[in-house]
Structure formats: C-alpha cells, structure tokens
C-alpha cells in the first residue's frame, strides 16, 4: 500500500532550510495497522501529511497503491485524497453547523454523488460506529467520543483504502480513548490499511506495528 524510499522534506524557516524528514524508508502492507510514535518535532506528523497527500516531499519516492506520487497538481491530489484516503484528526474537525449525518456525507459531495445516495451511505456509516440515533444531532450536542466516532464514519464513508489518524485519542479521556481505538481496530480488521500517529504507549500497543521516529529518521521499525 505504502512504499517510501529515502523520503526527505525540509521547511524554510526565515532564509534557512530546516530538514524535517531526512531519508525515510518505509513499507506498509495492505491491511496493516501501524502506529507512528515519537516526540514532537520528530517528523511523525509531517510524514503523515506527506503520506496523506496534504504535503509534498522534496526528495525520494513515494508510491501509494503502486502509483508514484510526484508533481501532482493541487486538484489532482485533492481528488486522490478523496478517493484513497480517510482522515481522522485529534480535534475531530466536524463542521459545527452541520448534523452528524451531513458531516459524514461531506466527502461524498466532492464526488458528485446524488444526494439520496450520500444520505444513505452516511446513515450506514453512522450505524457502523453505533450512532444511528444521533444522525440529526449537531456536533455540539455530542460527547467527545461520539464526535470522534462521527469523524471516523466520515473517514470511512468514501471506502478509502488507507485511513490516516493523527492523534485520534489526543482529546479524549482514557476510557473513551480505548473505545475509539477498539473501533479503529475493528475498521482495520474489516480491511482498511491504517496509520495512527500517537504519543500514548497504550494506543500504540494496540497496533500491529509501532514505528518510532526521531529527528526525521526512523529510529526503530520492528
């Protein structure tokens, strides 16, 4: 699913280029559940952004599903993100003025899918995360765990092959965190490749494989 070779990335800070990723080699197979761990500044979020086509790498190669990712226009990467990748964020990023169902259906609007089908799929997605009865609620009527479930349903509604979760439990209490992690595992077991960025060992423990990053390099990849 993911094949990364000698990936580098640096950011301009003032008139200086600060390297963030210094040559990453990484393979993630179909159906894997991988955790990225590392202290802040280790490059784990940048790596996730590059993998998620939200950011471009400077050097090395990145193949996603066998396709070389290089020189994509913004429009093309948006299309690929929509087709291939589901995102789960630490602070959920639900649109506050849309109901749970509308939030879940949002990615489908960028596919020119008929409204009826979108609603159908969104409701099915909410059912999958156990929130069928909350479809018409606005985000501020939901608990943190419920919000993240809605966000997970949104990530899955496009049937992506890769789910990227950036600190998905970072804003939740420990009990809820474990519940969410169990849900992500379930999703993974249903066939989705998944990468989770976390700094919580209990979360990483529940993944198949934990990759540790440090100073822009993979420190340990068992």
């Amino acid at each position, binding site marked *: 699913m993911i094949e990364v070779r000698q990936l580098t990335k640096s950011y301009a800070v003032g008139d200086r280029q600060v390297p963030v990723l210094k040559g990453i080699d990484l393979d993630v197979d179909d159906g894997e559940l991988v955790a990225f761990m590392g202290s802040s500044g280790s490059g784990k979020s940048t790596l996730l952004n590059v993998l998620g086509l*939200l950011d471009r790498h400077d050097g090395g190669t990145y193949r996603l599903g066998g396709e070389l990712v290089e020189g994509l226009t913004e*429009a093309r990467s*948006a299309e690929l*993100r*929509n087709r291939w990748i589901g995102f789960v*964020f630490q602070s959920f990023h639900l*649109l506050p003025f849309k109901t749970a169902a509308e939030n879940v259906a949002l990615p489908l609007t*960028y*596919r020119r899918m008929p409204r009826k089908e979108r609603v159908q799929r969104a409701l099915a997605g909410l059912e999958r995360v156990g929130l069928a009865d909350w479809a018409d609620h606005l985000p501020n009527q939901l608990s943190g765990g419920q919000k993240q479930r809605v966000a997970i349903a*949104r990530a899955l509604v496009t049937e992506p092959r890769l789910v990227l979760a950036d600190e998905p439990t970072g804003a939740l209490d420990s009990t809820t965190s474990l519940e969410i992690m169990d849900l992500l595992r379930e999703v993974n077991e249903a066939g989705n490749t998944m990468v989770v960025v976390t700094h919580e060992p209990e979360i990483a423990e529940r993944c198949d494989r934990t990759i540790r990053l440090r100073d822009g390099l993979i420190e340990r990849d068992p």
Partner: protein
Amino acid sequence: MSDLLRELVEDVVRHPLRSTLTALSVAWGTFMLVVLLGLGTGLQNSVRWQFRDDATNSIWIYDGETSLPYQGHRVGREVQFVEADIGRVESLPGVEHLTGRFYPPGRRALLKVGDRASAYGVRSVHPDHVYLENTLVVAGRFLNPLDLSDKRKVVVLGREVADFLFRGQRDEQVLGQWVDLAGTPFRVVGLFEDEGGDGEVSIVYIPITTARTVFRGGDRVHQIMFTVGDASVEEANQIASVVTRQVAQSHQIHPDDPTAFRVRNYLEQFQQLQGVFLMLELFTWVVGIGTVLAGVVGVGNIMLVSVQERTAEIGLRKALGATPGRIVAGVVREAVLLTAVAGYTGVVAGVAAVEAIRTWVPDNDYLRNPEPEVGVALVAMGLLVLAGAVAGFVPAWRAATVDPITALRDA
C-alpha cells in the same frame, strides 16, 4: 444544483445580520441608482414638456428702454416696435418664420356667442405665428396674408374657447359662425389645439392688422418672434444680433444698447438645458455607481472576513477532497449570489419607488412622468454580478491558498 444552492443559502444564513447589512448596502446602491435615474428622467420630461409647444429654435425679442445715449437722444427712451420693423427683419439672412405680436389692453378680451360669454387671451399675430408655437389647426385654417392685408375680422379659436362658446357643436358647425370679440363681430375660420396644455388653448388668434384697428393700436408691435431653422446656437445668436442692430438703427438706438431689447433665445436655452441634463445624468451615474461600488467593496470585505473565519473549514474541505477550483467557485458564487440578490432587490424596490412617485406625485414643473429605466437597471444588474465576482475574487484566492495542514493544526 440544489445542493449548491443549499450550501450558498446556508452560508449566507449563518450570519444573518452581517449578510443582511452587506446586502442592504448593495441594495441601497442599486435603489439609489434606479431612483435617481428615474427622477432625472422625470425632471427632463417636465422641462421638455414646458418647451414642447414652442419651436425650440425660436428667438423672441421684446422691446425695452434705452440705457445708452445715441445721436442726441436721451437715455431711458422707451423703445416701441412698429409694423415697419417686421418688414426690416423679414429679409435678413437666417430668419425663417417671422411674426409680430400685438396685445390688446390687458391682453384679454370678452368673447360672446348668444348668452355665453367669457374673457380669453387674445393674440394678434402674423400668419407665420403658426410655426412659432406648435399650433395644431384641427378644423378650418390659420390666419393668412389676405386676412392681414384686408384687415378681415376673422378669429381662430382654441379648443377650450370653442368648447365653451359653442358647446355641443361639432367643429365643422363652428366654422363660419360669428363671435362677438370686445364688441366687434369676428367670423370663426379655424380651430386649433396646442400641446402646451389648457393655457395654450384658452386663447384666440386674430390678424395683427385687424387688432390694431379694433383696439386702436396704430402700427404698434409688442413682440417680434422668429425661427432660425437648423442654425446652431452661435449662428442663432449671430442672427439675433443682426436683427436687433437692424431694428436699433431704424429707431436711432445705440447698436450695443444692452437694455433696448430683451432677447430670448430658446435654442440657446434648450441647448443649455440639454447640457445640464447630460451633466445630471452623468452625475447620477457617478453617484449611483459609486454607491453600488461601496456596496460591492462591502461584499468583498465581508467575504474576506468570512473566509478568514472559515479557514479551518476550508482546510478540512480541502483535506476531504475539495479542489481549489471548487473552493474558489464556492466563494465567488456566494459573493455573486449576495450582490445579485441584493442588487436585484434594490432594483425592484427602486422601480417600485419610481412607480409610486409616478402614481402619487402629480406632474409639476420639476417632475413629470418619472420613468424607471428598467433596461438601464438590468445593465446595472449585469455589471453588479460582474462586480460581485470581482469582489469575491480576492477572498476566493485567499481561500484557495489555505494550507490544510496549517488550517487543521491541532493547537
């Protein structure tokens, strides 16, 4: 499409006060534009109306008093036109249709038919007078040279006069009947109408020669009037000055005496008014478009604020697969929708206001039949939509360049 509309309406409705105020500024702009243009047309119509019964290429000369000594004559001499002046002016180049006017004392006379009697304005003129006021002879004829040379006692009646004196009679029946005018019987030879309104048809015309006999006027002429064809304003002024010098010479008046004659050049007045109208229209457009522009800048501003507020939302949408083109289109569409709906509302309100004025405010000297220029308003609408797109462009560009990573960064 309905999805798009839903999104747009949602966006606008999310900040009802802000959207309303912004929309109001645009609506006010188009409203003002339409109303100003409508009133401008009303003013023009009213002035044209006041001019319309007179030949706009005519020059009227009244006699006055001298203020310069000349050839031994004292200052303050009263100038009096005489019939001979008409002959002197007649042959001058540039003078097209020429007439004098002689007014009986009080300018009015009692007209009587049987037991019906009323006082009406009496104008004693030459035959060419018919060209000076847009007099429409609807039955019979106007005065002719024979009437003058034979000093015939004939009269041409205005519509009002005929309707009163010969109530219930057809126009043809009135012709040939006799009217008692200040004690002298006159035969009706024609009936006329005039676009100048009731005042202009409550008068009668009689031959200037007959009038001078009946009212003992000698060979007096009170007023000389003539048209100048299609002469320009400068040419018309030139002709007028040749005419006054000619008359001045025969009356032994200083050729440059400023008060011996009063000259009213309708052509010049008309042209000046046309110029004023042009300026007025230009001014209206400048003010109107300025106001609309202020509204459009407001829309752009609001969109910018809106984009700023929605940075996270835009970032999220991009992450979920919205292309930059789609983001740009969304913002521009919102700006266009806002300006178009608001602008249209303003146009409709403006048209309604002008219609209301037209209906409820009676025609007067300053306003007559104000017309909402719907065509112009529609053009303005088109421009407005364009302006909306331009207003939306900067915010849209700002939105399109939102970096989803920055926007979604968990802080």
